[in-house]
């Protein structure tokens, strides 16, 4: 069975704090999660992303310019 990727969002900071896969689509607070954490299905949101009105803004990865 293909698993479905979800972002776990801390609603006190609107930040993605974890990525968990479920067998079915989840919304709101899933089993075992604390009340301030909600699930939102997403294939692209990353840990550290900000979440607002259904949109994720991923953090800018650190980079080093090679010379």
């Amino acid at each position, binding site marked *: 069975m293909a*698993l479905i*990727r979800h972002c*776990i969002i801390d609603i006190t900071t609107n930040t993605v*704090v*974890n*990525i*968990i*896969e*479920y*067998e079915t689509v989840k919304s709101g607070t*899933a*089993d*075992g*999660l*604390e009340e301030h954490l909600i699930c939102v299905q997403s*294939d*692209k949101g*990353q*840990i*550290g992303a900000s979440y607002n009105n259904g949109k994720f803004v991923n953090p800018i*990865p*650190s*980079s*080093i*310019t*090679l010379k």
Partner: protein
Amino acid sequence: MTTIIDGTSGITLSGSTNQITFNDSSTQISHAVPQITVYLSSSGTYTVPTNAKYLYIKMVGGGGGGAGGNNGGNGGSGGNTTFGSSFLTTNGGGGGLIASNGTVGTGGAATINAGATGIALAGGQGSGGTGQSAATAGYQVSSPGGNSAFGGGGSGQENAAGGAGATNTGGGGAGGGGAVTVANVGGGGGAGGYIEAYITTLSASYSYAIGAGGTAGTAGTSAYAGGVGGSGAIIITAFF
């Protein structure tokens, strides 16, 4: 009073299912076999079995995804695997980084807080992306993902997408390769952290979550995507 039982023909406790209970209910003798529970995805609540004396936990975070070849996209970090609230945590590995970044995919950390005893191991690093002069470019093996304590790091490949981290090992995905003219291959994702711990003072239940594997970095021009990271897992053995 001391009671001596003649056990020559064995002793049968006809009214008992699996135990002898002393006045001190914390010291019970049981022949119940250990109860093993394995979680491979999602989140939920683990309920400690009745009369369990202690738990033995093995857990791993998700592996980071590999970066895309030819400076495509970085891989995504793996998810964190948790047991209890701020109790046992194995972080996901960092995503693999594109060759122009030049650094490794970090291994996930692991933390055991008060109430459990064991070892907490960081995941292995994913190899950094590499480049070479385009003038001398030939097929180049991409960078492998890091191994967790369960292994499972994806292998680097020539002219192909990076190998995926093995499912439920927390291994990192490998970076993506490229065509013969491509000078840069993607870096591998780091592996998830690992914990092996005993809990001897038990709560009635524990929340848990299994970290997902990190996403694969997108492919650059004339190159291939990285491999996805391996997801995490928890194995719980309850002893009676």
